[in-house]
């Protein structure tokens, strides 16, 4: 039986803030966080699993992330802020995650918003 979870996370993202802001945790597989060092927001993908994780990014190709390692992916600028759409694939764990991350512009601090669809036991 395939199990599917939908996970949503959002957090204020002060421009130039020190350190990443956690958004979504897909337990045992991947943690997603975002940071805005001042020029361009980027997504931090941390492989929390014991196996290689393949990250497929819209318009940017495919990258393998080793267990325990992280990958920084810049968000694409949009009229409303910034956005990213990606797949996270683990053949060993037979799991697939689709994630959509955006930074919503605001007169105050921006807000980072993420939603992940996680399918396991494929």
């Amino acid at each position, binding site marked *: 039986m395939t199990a599917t*979870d939908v996970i*949503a*996370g959002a957090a204020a993202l002060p421009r130039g803030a020190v350190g990443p802001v956690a958004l979504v945790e897909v337990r045992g597989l991947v943690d997603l966080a975002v940071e805005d060092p001042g020029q361009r927001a980027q997504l931090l993908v941390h492989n929390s699993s014991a196996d290689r994780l393949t990250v497929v990014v819209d318009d940017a190709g495919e990258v393998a992330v080793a267990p325990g390692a992280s990958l920084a992916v810049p968000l694409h600028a949009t009229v409303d802020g910034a956005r990213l759409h990606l*797949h996270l694939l683990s053949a060993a764990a037979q799991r697939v995650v689709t994630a*959509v991350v955006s930074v919503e512009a605001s007169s105050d601090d921006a807000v980072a918003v993420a*939603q992940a*669809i996680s399918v396991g036991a494929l």
Partner: protein
Amino acid sequence: VTGVLRSELALPAHGRVRVLSCSKDLEPGARAMLLLAEGLFRLDIMIVGDALQTFVRNLTSGELELHGEVGQPRVAITTLGLAARYAPGRADLRFAVGPADARITIAVTIATLRFPDRGVIRASAQAIVRG
């Protein structure tokens, strides 16, 4: 608006599965295509109020067989931080297409977020295609 993202995953015991996904910001009441698998199916959706309506077009010579149902978006299982302000929701749909001797099964999950400041609903869909 982002395009359809496609990838494949090779599974040791089950061959390959195809993964399709797409995410669009929609105005309430607008119908939009979310997923297109060439030669297999096209999935459109329309959101009116709390109701999510799906439209599946069968692009194969075989019959379309629906296995699941899509109703009003349910509250997502996990909501973290400030995400509740975006009223996350989900809906699930399963169907099969293709000729009798080579059926293709598709499991679709649609996740939604509402952005009242912009007057739009973000609909993100993921399809797992087997066969």
